């Protein structure tokens, strides 16, 4: 359950730091789990215990073999998280892969790789890509490449994903400094304690948030921000689709022509850009779609239009600073994002919470799940053509939930509610009554109404049944999580698979459906709303008898937390899927590494396979059924 493996007081043998650089402090080596021992026994010379957590693969040529063993023998069938950490003192960049068993769950298995840090803006030596084994690695590896310049050999489309091609440098490397750089860690001395601080524009040479390399000529530069996004798509094809995604490929039929005449009929394929400004891409997502008539024959996503550098800013912030930033990830579900983050930090610090805190977290968290599902269903219906009528009803309900959260936390969306070991405020008795009214009276009725009007709706069914199908195996391989995975017959929910909070005290089900299409994703969400209500109702009842009002802080309150050196991967089940925080601390008041395993982002990985072979109008519906929030996709 707890993945914290480091205790600050126990220096152990220092593993794997190259001799030439040995500047790092000795840190605890990972505890060996049975699975790790099995790998170590089989691949003796190629692995060793990594620092803090997991196994370090020292022989890169064995990595694919080890990963195959992990997948096929140890049954860790999903790649949960892929990222990197820049250990600048050791002179290495460490690539971290975390694997989960789906649907069994349990603690993830960590495999690490180390590559020497190249100088300047060079890329690293290539490391083997996991894409052939885990297709879900594609976007994550591209992000790691984009942020650290780690080259993954075997990734089918290794281009920058959040930034643009041609951007100068690898932003998350520790020696790369942004234009407004002021110091490695906050609080910056210039702003504290005197508070006299200049505008960033007055401090920097360009008087703006830009930096150009020496010798740059703005007129001679040839911009190519998308790289070769079109080149691979422009290759002529015969309208058939090479991906086997279960749709089969329906031949284009023109009435009045027989098969041989059809074969002679050449149709042109066109490439259409949808977005980044498009009403049905749920924000600033851009889909590049190749069409044969109305059929999607290829699809690529261009992301990063809302990339606002959470991770770089997060490494500068103190631990406490980051809580309000997490609100702005998936801004429909602010409180749940905070929960994942404070959970990680609490595990690293060994903080205990109180009963009241846990109940309040469950109540507010599940309320945001309801709000998010209302929003998701409303906008899915929007995409299906019921333009804004259902959404208006659900926004009204969401507003009621938001009212309660605003009364409690002070903000409608950016609640900033969680603290390490606690929450910021308790409910007043009036707010408690409001919550009871919502949970017992208003929302059950609304969900019944939603169900009554939509579930059997003929148009909804006609458009969504069979649309965007993806089989359970492919869903797991694509690292899909959340309602979309559960609609494909896999009962994987982090609340059960890797429990946190007080969820073990409530009686609730994890809804699972088996068709893996848009309609089932919709149904799973409706059922999950009912389960959420059950949880909230039980939590409200239990909290009244089993917790003390006002007891909202476990441990001491503090502004400045020092988190013991170590690392942690904490995950929670947000309405969109598994949201994970990979945190590394070096004992300072700032995170050394702050990575968000964003479920919206990783769920998009499977978009292409779901949409290819379908009509272009359905690709919009499929996107709606994935329920992405761009704040979390691009971070």
């Amino acid at each position, binding site marked *: 359950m707890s993945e914290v493996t480091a205790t600050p007081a126990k220096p152990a043998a220092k593993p794997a730091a190259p001799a030439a650089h040995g500047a790092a402090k000795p840190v605890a080596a990972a505890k060996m789990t049975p699975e790790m021992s099995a790998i170590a026994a089989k691949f003796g010379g190629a692995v060793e215990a990594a620092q803090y957590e997991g196994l370090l693969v020292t022989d890169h040529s064995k990595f694919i073999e080890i990963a195959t063993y992990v997948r096929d023998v140890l049954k860790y069938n999903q790649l949960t998280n892929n990222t990197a950490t820049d250990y600048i003192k050791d002179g290495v960049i460490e690539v971290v892969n975390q694997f989960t068993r789906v649907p069994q769950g349990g603690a993830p298995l960590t495999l690490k790789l180390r590559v020497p840090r190249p100088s300047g803006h060079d890329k690293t030596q290539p490391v083997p890509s996991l894409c052939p084994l885990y297709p879900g690695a594609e976007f994550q590896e591209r992000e790691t490449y984009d942020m650290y310049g780690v080259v993954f050999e075997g990734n089918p489309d290794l281009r920058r994903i959040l930034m643009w091609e041609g951007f100068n440098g690898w932003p998350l490397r520790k020696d790369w400094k942004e234009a407004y750089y002021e110091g490695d860690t906050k609080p910056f001395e210039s702003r504290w304690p005197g508070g006299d601080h200049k505008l960033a524009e007055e401090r920097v040479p360009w008087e*703006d948030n830009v930096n*150009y390399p*020496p010798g740059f000529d703005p007129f001679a530069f040839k911009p190519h921000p998308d790289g070769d996004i079109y080149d691979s798509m422009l290759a002529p094809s015969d309208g058939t689709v090479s991906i086997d995604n279960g749709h089969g490929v329906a031949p284009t039929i023109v009435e009045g022509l027989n098969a041989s005449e059809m074969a002679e009929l050449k149709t042109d394929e066109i490439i259409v850009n949808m977005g*980044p400004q498009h009403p049905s891409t749920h*924000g600033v997502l851009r889909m590049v779609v190749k069409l044969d008539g109305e059929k999607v024959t290829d699809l690529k996503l261009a992301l990063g239009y*809302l990339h606002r550098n959470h991770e770089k800013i997060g490494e500068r912030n103190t631990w406490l600073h980051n809580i309000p930033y997490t609100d702005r990830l998936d801004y429909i579900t602010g409180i749940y994002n905070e929960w994942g983050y404070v959970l990680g930090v609490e595990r690293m610090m060994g903080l205990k919470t109180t009963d009241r805190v846990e109940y309040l977290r469950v109540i507010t968290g599940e309320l945001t799940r309801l709000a998010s599902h209302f929003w998701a269903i409303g906008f899915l219906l929007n995409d299906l053509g019921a333009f804004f009528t259902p959404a208006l009803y659900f926004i009204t309900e969401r507003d009621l939930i938001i009212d309660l959260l605003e009364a409690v936390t002070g903000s*409608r*969306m950016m609640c900033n509610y969680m603290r390490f070991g606690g929450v910021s405020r308790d409910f007043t008795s009036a707010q408690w009554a409001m919550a009871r009214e919502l949970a017992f009276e208003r929302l059950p009725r609304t969900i019944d109404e939603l169900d009554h009007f939509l579930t059997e709706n003929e148009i909804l069914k006609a458009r969504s049944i069979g649309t965007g199908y993806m089989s359970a195996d492919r869903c797991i391989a694509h690292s899909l999580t959340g309602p979309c995975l559960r609609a494909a017959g896999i009962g994987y929910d982090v609340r059960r698979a890797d429990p946190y909070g007080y969820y073990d005290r409530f009686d609730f089900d994890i809804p699972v459906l088996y068709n893996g299409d848009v309609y089932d994703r919709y149904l799973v969400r409706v059922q999950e709303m009912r389960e959420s209500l059950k949880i909230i109702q039980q939590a409200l009842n239990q909290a009244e008898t089993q917790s003390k009002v006002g007891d909202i802080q476990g441990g001491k309150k503090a502004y400045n937390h020092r988190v013991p050196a170590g690392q942690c991967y904490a995950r929670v089940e947000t309405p969109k899927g598994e949201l994970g925080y990979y945190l590394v601390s070096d004992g300072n008041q700032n995170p050394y590494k702050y990575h968000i395993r964003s479920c919206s982002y990783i769920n998009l990985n499977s978009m292409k396979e779901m949409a290819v072979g379908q009509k272009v109008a359905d690709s919009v519906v499929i996107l709606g059924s994935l329920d992405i929030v761009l*704040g979390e996709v691009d971070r």
Partner: protein
Amino acid sequence: MATQTTNIPDELKNDPRVPEDLNNNIFITTLDKIYNWGRKRSMWPLLFGLACCAIEMICTAASRHDLSRFGWELMRASPRQADLMIVSGTVTKKMIPQIVRLYNQMPEPRYVVAMGSCATSGGPFKEGYNVVSGIDKFIPVDVYIPGCPPRPEALLHSFVKLQEKIEKQSIRTVRWYTTGKTDNGMLVPYLGPDLVDLRRADEIKQKTAL
């Protein structure tokens, strides 16, 4: 009606051109007033959301806050049909070329509301390497709203402020009705090693010279 209504002026009272039954139904106003009165009550915002603020913008348009009370509810997805751009969220360097292009595609008169701290100045993400420090570095802004995100009421307030601004404009002086003064739009920046604003090209060349 917001225009000035008066009783029928004396010189028209006995004018045979005015039928008797219209005597109490004649309004005197200026062209500016009647024109702006119509214009300010029928803004068509661009259906365009960037980030968190877009959620509050949608809430503003929804039933509780009811944007259509102002006559502004017709959100158009095409910039060619829009009068008002609500920049609702963090403006990133990757997105700014598209935003400037959208702005240029809007017909005049066009207005811009910078919604929230990010669109105003970069907000909490200002120090980020992919964040533009405020949309006003690239396109002119009419109304700024603080907040992260601003409440729907704040967005409504910005509309009231914009209406006040429109009321003060005169057909005689606004540029878009003046012959010979066409607006070519704003220069679209491009994505080089960093965001390149070509208005500063000479300065960039000078400072980066080896």
